[in-house]
């Protein structure tokens, strides 16, 4: 279960650990996020965009970074997702943002992922995306979806 903290009266905060050793459990944070946002009563189209972006991010953290942490800030008119990992970092962000470019190993493609659509998808489904990354240290991705 996610850890829940009320940051203040207007922001709901959830923190999920993304297990890097378990491909089967990848996506659990996104499933829970989807349910939380439904309870909050956001429009389905916004919920779908948040869940897909977060799901792609979770899969990325499992494939590339041995897991990480997904944080969710729910505000009145927007949702902010912060994904932090201590993986290898992204060497060339511009290249990684190109559709079809992937550094995922072949065994990941046999699981249905690694087509080089993850980061472009995350950008496409969100209203804002920032990538902070350092090779050898990790990556932090902040995404915003306006409701």
């Amino acid at each position, binding site marked *: 279960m996610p850890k829940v903290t009320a940051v203040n009266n207007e922001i709901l905060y959830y923190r999920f650990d993304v297990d890097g050793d378990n*491909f*089967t*459990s*990848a*996506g659990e944070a*996104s*499933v829970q996020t*989807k349910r939380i946002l439904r309870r909050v009563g956001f429009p*389905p*189209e916004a919920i*779908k*965009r948040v*869940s*897909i972006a977060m*799901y*792609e991010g979770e*899969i990325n953290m499992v494939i590339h970074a041995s897991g990480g942490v997904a944080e969710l800030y729910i505000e009145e008119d927007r949702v902010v997702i912060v994904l932090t990992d201590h993986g290898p970092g992204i060497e060339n962000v511009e290249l990684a943002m190109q*559709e079809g470019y992937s550094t995922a190993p072949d065994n990941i*493609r046999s*699981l*249905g*992922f*690694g*087509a*080089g*659509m*993850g980061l*472009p*998808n995350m950008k*496409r*489904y969100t209203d804002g995306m920032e990538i902070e990354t350092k090779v050898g240290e990790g990556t932090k991705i902040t995404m915003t979806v306006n409701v």
Partner: protein
Amino acid sequence: MKMSEIASILDCRVLCCEDHMNSDVFSACGSDMMSDVLAYVKNQAVLLTGLVNTQVIRTAEMMDMVCVVFVRNKMPTEDILRVAEESGIVVMTTKHRMYEACGMLYASGLNRAEAGHAEGDGRE
């Protein structure tokens, strides 16, 4: 088309969430690449796939899909069915191959939805 009709056209075994079989669906897509489903699918309700793992169900749930059909007699594990059950996603398996299964549904009037990127393009 009702999900029960899909099951009948494809001669499916229904493995999960049989109580939703009366619901209507209007479109479907076939893919083994979940990355592509997440990128290109738009409002399709049924996913036909030859890929068998938990992420197929998760992908379907993220895309608000309501039914997964495994082709070529592929059988999901108990774990996969448990995830589908929790998400309320109907799971079926058919002996037909992907190309045949898609063709049979298409010929019976189940269309693809509009092609192109999902919400990202234009956000209609």
